[in-house]
């Protein structure tokens, strides 16, 4: 293995255009788990982003919170305005791994690692986040809920870098983030659910119950219809249209299905169980 260390974002994009096999690395919390023990273990080359300070800060614009490619979970935890305006991002950040992971792991890394269990993606998708992809001479924006095309596959070309994630402002009167894991910290979700209601309607997002983190359009339609929901079982027909949980090392399909319905019902109780 080898490392390419660009000095600027432009050089990083030129490198990717030149060699599309390069693997970008930032905080390394996913990649280092399977890092080669010696340089001659394999021939892959990594593109180091960690020195590109311009990609680190999060910033606020008139219409969005913009996370940089190197913005960490801890950057979000320590920015009080995020907890006020985007509480689901703060909640997700605090439930990723533990402090030692939060200080290194990046939102953009969580996004391109493309785990179906990704905590950060769950919260971002509930807010209608947009992925900013740059390649040499071109910038493309893809809504996060259209970014994934299948298990661990996504609409990022090998010459593109995720340089930012835009999270649009907007009034939301209901916001929910629930992660169910074996313990509070250092756990990968068995089930994750996030939901938000704005003037534009509901967004319901689920993790660890499908090949990708995904929106749940049938559940969104059910909630929008305003039919009173009397218990978790009332959510199951819509839930079954939206997700396809499986048995794996962390949980079972049956547990995930039942738990997702219960977490969603209890999280939204008081909102969805009464006639409007």
């Amino acid at each position, binding site marked *: *293995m*080898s*490392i*390419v260390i660009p000095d600027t974002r432009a050089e990083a994009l030129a490198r990717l255009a030149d060699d599309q096999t390069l693997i970008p690395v930032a905080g*390394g919390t996913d990649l280092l*788990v399977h890092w080669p023990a010696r340089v001659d273990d394999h021939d892959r080359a990594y593109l180091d982003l*960690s*020195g590109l300070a311009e990609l680190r800060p999060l910033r606020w614009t008139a219409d969005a919170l913009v996370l940089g490619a190197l913005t960490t979970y801890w950057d979000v935890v320590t920015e009080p305005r995020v907890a006020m305006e985007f509480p689901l991002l703060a909640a997700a950040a*605090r439930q990723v791994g533990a402090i*030692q992971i939060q200080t290194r792991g990046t939102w953009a890394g969580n996004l391109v690692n493309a785990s179906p269990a990704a905590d950060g993606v769950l919260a971002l998708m509930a807010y209608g986040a947009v992925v900013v992809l740059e390649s040499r001479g071109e910038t493309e924006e893809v809504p996060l809920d259209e970014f994934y095309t299948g298990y661990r596959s996504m609409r990022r070309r090998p010459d593109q870098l995720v340089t930012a994630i835009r999270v649009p402002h907007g009034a939301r009167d209901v916001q929910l983030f629930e992660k169910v894991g074996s313990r509070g910290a250092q756990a990968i979700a068995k089930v994750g659910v996030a939901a938000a209601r704005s003037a534009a309607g509901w967004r319901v997002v689920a993790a660890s119950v499908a090949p990708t983190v995904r929106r749940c359009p049938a559940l969104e339609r059910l909630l929008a219809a305003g039919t009173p929901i009397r218990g978790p079982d009332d959510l199951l027909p819509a839930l079954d249209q939206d997700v396809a949980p499986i048995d794996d090392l962390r949980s079972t399909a049956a547990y995930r299905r039942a738990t997702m319905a219960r977490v969603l019902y209890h999280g939204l109780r008081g909102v969805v169980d009464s006639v409007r």
Partner: protein
Amino acid sequence: MTTTGSPLPAPHSAIGIDFTLNGEPVSLSVSAAERLLDTLRERLRLTGTKEGCGEGECGSCTVWLDGLPVCACLVPSYQVRGRRVDTVEGVAPTRLAPYLASGATQCGACTPGVVMTAEWIRRHPTLLATHTVRELMAGNLCRCTGYDGIVNGIAAALDADRERA
């Protein structure tokens, strides 16, 4: 598939780095694959930092990178160039008294990592406005103490720090 005649220099398999370790400047050449944990233990012989799981779960290799706790097993060594690294060897032994008194250590395998997170909390007590000690310590696994000794030791240390302030 690098194009022939590319103006871009070749990727590195070894990198010369300068960084600050426990307040002292260090210069060395590291392999591109080297982890900070191995650089500290095998190259610099600072064996206080322990390897537990090697995948960021247990926290026994916790060090500070630019003042923030990180798992040294998940940091490629080349990434610390120009940065500040602090290890358990940099902690003054006198600061350990509250942990010893409360039974925060038994077998000792997790202790260097526990001490690094605990000392980080002591240096940033305002964290406790938003976090509990248990949440901040959740990345340090301990199979002996049941955690009460650790949490009580940190509480005692914070109390003592407040009285001194």
